[in-house]
């Protein structure tokens, strides 16, 4: 077996049993990156030397019997997480060669548990996008391709496209990602891997470049549900440096994966049956519910009546917060600075931000500025907040009847890099099944459940109660077991 084919859990076991060393594991992944990254463009920065150094140190720790839960496991870090001493770009030109002097809490937690960082992975600029085509460092390619149209290069989804593509192509055993409207779950679905956006507040946001503070949440992507559970256990936890971080205990998520679904009530929201959803996605959804029934769960149709307002609400709240969060990129203290004419401060701002931000980021800054403007605030931002509360209430009421909700993860499989690029609204529709969990702050897991007619992966989403990731993992693992998803992408390391 090639070292890059291990699951994360399998790798930990192999390391523990001495079947493989962290150096071997790390080198195999670095070789894979060297071979495939020029095409996939998943990594923005590869920290090969540092990774091997960490791997050697890990092997030494393991020899001394002091290995942490993730000791020696090579991971990829989304380039939105600040990493001390390693350039952090957020996929934007405006951060220039910004090298943070601090480590984000989530990545620090992974280092604490012994993880090896292979490098920083690509993303949509400032995590704004659903196709990883908005990155200043070029688009990421999905390692999967259509059976009947193998030459069309597909998007990996976004914004965590680099994370998902790297993990799917076996260029990392797992990766950190972030999810503001679906940025973990949609790329995970497009790349045939698992990914969870935990409950808002479960992972600290400290040291993660902010997109929309009330929606952003870090989470893992990995090739199995259990691998996600293992990673989340390390990433999560209360952080006094983040005022929105939740002071709740972090349970053993991996153990929850084996709980089974017997006796659970699973909701199927009727409002998620959208016109125009491909029949194979509808069919997969029904199949997923059947698998759960087969394992002893009860399925119930539920109603989340405000669902249709979720996308417009999201596209008011997220840009509003982003327009303010991104004001700090002004060329004054760090990152890109474009010289001003006549030492004019306003000119410095305009030139720096014009040159530094890409079109999608500019679009969202303008939308956000507009909806917060005097005279429009009540009609847009305030109304969106009210609807957000109603969406949350929909879920509260639903969770009085059910233990988890299952929906499709995306309205389609991965699409071509040149498709859907002309109309931003079409692109925004990618988030239709995922934004609700962000608006309500709930955990959402995407699990690979099947292939479409073109041989592309499709995912199902499991949404749970706040801070009940355990049930989400249990349901996700049950779907995963039944789906027995074994398909692999054409582009992958070790082939």
């Amino acid at each position, binding site marked *: 077996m090639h070292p890059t084919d291990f699951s994360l859990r399998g790798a930990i076991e192999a390391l523990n049993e001495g079947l493989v060393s962290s150096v071997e594991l790390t080198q195999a992944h670095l070789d894979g990156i060297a071979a495939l990254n020029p095409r996939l463009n998943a990594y923005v920065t590869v920290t090969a030397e540092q990774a091997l150094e960490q791997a050697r140190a890990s092997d030494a720790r393991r020899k001394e019997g002091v290995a942490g839960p993730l000791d020696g496991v090579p991971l990829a870090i989304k380039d939105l997480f*600040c990493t001390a001493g390693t350039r952090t770009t957020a996929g934007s030109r405006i951060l220039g060669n910004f090298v943070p002097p601090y480590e984000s809490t989530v990545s620090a937690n992974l280092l604490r548990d012994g993880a090896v960082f292979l490098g920083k992975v690509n993303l949509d600029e400032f995590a704004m996008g659903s196709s990883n085509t908005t990155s200043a460092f070029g688009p990421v390619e999905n390692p999967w391709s259509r059976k009947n149209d193998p030459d069309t290069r597909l998007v990996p989804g976004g914004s965590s496209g680099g994370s998902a593509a790297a993990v799917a192509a076996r260029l990392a055993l797992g990766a950190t990602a972030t999810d503001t409207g679906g940025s973990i779950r949609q790329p995970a679905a497009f790349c045939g891997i698992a990914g969870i956006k935990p409950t808002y507040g479960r992972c600290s*946001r400290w040291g*993660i470049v902010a997109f929309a503070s009330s929606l952003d949440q870090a989470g893992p992507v990995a090739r199995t549900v259990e691998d996600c559970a293992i990673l989340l256990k390390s990433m999560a936890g209360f952080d006094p440096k983040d005022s929105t971080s939740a002071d709740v205990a972090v349970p053993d998520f991996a153990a929850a994966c084996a709980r089974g679904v017997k006796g659970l009530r699973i909701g199927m929201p009727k409002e998620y049956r959208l016109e125009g959803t491909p029949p194979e996605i509808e069919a997969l959804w029904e199949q997923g519910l059947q698998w759960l029934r087969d394992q002893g769960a009860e399925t119930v149709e539920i109603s989340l009546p405000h669902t249709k307002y979720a996308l417009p609400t999201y596209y008011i709240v997220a840009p509003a917060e982003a327009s303010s969060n991104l004001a700090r990129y*002004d060329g*004054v203290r760090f990152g890109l600075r474009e010289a001003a004419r006549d030492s004019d401060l306003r000119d410095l701002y305009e030139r720096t931000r014009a040159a530094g931000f890409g079109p999608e980021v500019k679009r969202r800054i303008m939308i956000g500025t507009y909806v*917060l*403007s005097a005279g429009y*605030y009540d009609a847009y931002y305030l109304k969106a907040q009210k609807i957000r509360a109603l969406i949350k209430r929909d879920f509260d009421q639903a969770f009085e009847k059910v233990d988890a909700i299952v929906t499709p993860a995306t309205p389609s499989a991965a699409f071509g890099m040149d498709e859907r690029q002309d109309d931003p609204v079409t692109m925004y529709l990618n988030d239709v099944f995922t934004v609700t969990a962000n608006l309500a702050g709930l955990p959402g897991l995407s699990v690979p459940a099947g292939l479409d007619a073109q041989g592309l992966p499709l995912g199902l989403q499991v949404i749970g109660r706040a801070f009940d990731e355990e049930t989400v993992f249990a349901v996700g693992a049950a779907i995963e077991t039944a789906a027995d998803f074994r398909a692999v992408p054409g582009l992958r390391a070790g082939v």
Partner: protein
Amino acid sequence: MSFTLEGRTGPWEIVVGLEVHAQVTSRAKLFSGAATAFGAEPNSQVSFVDAGFPGMLPVINRECVAQAVRTGLGLKAQINLWSRFDRKNYFYADLPQGYQISQYAHPIVGEGAIEIELADGSTKTVGITRLHLEQDAGKSLHDQHPSKSYIDLNRSGVALMEIVSEPDMRSPEEAGAYLTKLRQILRYLGTCDGNMDEGSMRADVNVSVRRAGEGYRTRCEVKNVNSIRFVMQAVEAEARRQIEVWEEGGTVEQETRLFDTARGITRSMRSKEDAHDYRYFPDPDLPPLVIEQGWVEGLKASLPELPDERRARYVAMGLSPYDAHVLTLEKETAAYFETVARGRDAKVAANWVMGDLFAAINRTRTSIAEPPVKAEYLGVLLDLMQDGTLSGKLAKEVFEAMVETGRSPGAIVEERGLRQVTDAGAIERIVAQVLEANLDKVAEYKSGKEKLFGFFVGQTMKAMQGKGNPALVNEAVKKLLG
């Protein structure tokens, strides 16, 4: 009697409201652990949060919240157990985040009141609209380099209380009295040091004018006035400007102005049309600020005595309202007075503090915080008068010697042999000598020129180098003149 300004067309009333920015006394900033000391090297007290670095998040400083609540309690104001931080968005080089975090819509402190004292002895209540917490910005330095601006972020993120008054003031004097009283309360509470020259306290002055009996006319805001005297000058200057505009048939436009302290006039800074759209919205990095009534009660129980209460106590101790007012203006003065008055006659203590001590402070250019005579020494001096060791005259002499040498009154009395003579026999012997030497005057006295009594007393004191006990000298003169 209401204050008016006389225009060409008749009298005008002034309407003033103040927004005071008071720097919270705390070791750390409002949302970061960086220090707040004044006068540190530029950019030496800046955390990554204060500099707006990517991924940095604000965490509220509990002590700053406590200080705001204490201040609210001191202003007899409503304490809001639920308040919220909003973002005020605008671009400026010394505003690293691109927004200021401020309690725009839901302040921590609501309505309160301050009673101000006016020169004619009357008092007036000025309403407090609200008090909220917000971050200070950094400082832009434009005079350090011919073509560059420098930024100092030491102040960036420092906690400010913005204290907004009702438009209740009607004269420059009232505005001055309000600011004086507010500063006094803040300093008593220890929630702001009130150092206006260090920028710890600055005022935005809202001024309008009107005819008697009218509703409010358009107001202008004079920004960032940094002394009580300038506030009073700015009120008058801006009111006079507006009167002129109205009287010439013009209209006062709502705008932000600056006070030119050199020329004593206000200048336009930006008009309403140029006003920023600050795009306020709740800061998503901060949950609402929720405090508990029990915590507020705890802060209330540990509040120090406030100026009004202290003044009332002094009056109860027998001081005149004026003396009580003067002694409580600065808490250091009150502390000095209390040390002197402890266990002694309060009125005598007040007279010495307000008379000889204040004069000595003026003369030596010192301050009550570093007084020329220690309060304990002044107390001992009063004791020496009380037990008859020193006469009033000798006491003044000892006091002056204390100012010069800083030594204790006991040491000075011993050293200079200033002890008062209270031996009646010794005094009588001297009086006898004085009478002997002035037989002609004695004869005049006896023939009815009783004014000469003082002459004999004076001659006796002179002969004793002022050390004779005045009462005993009087008695002896009376006795021997028979």
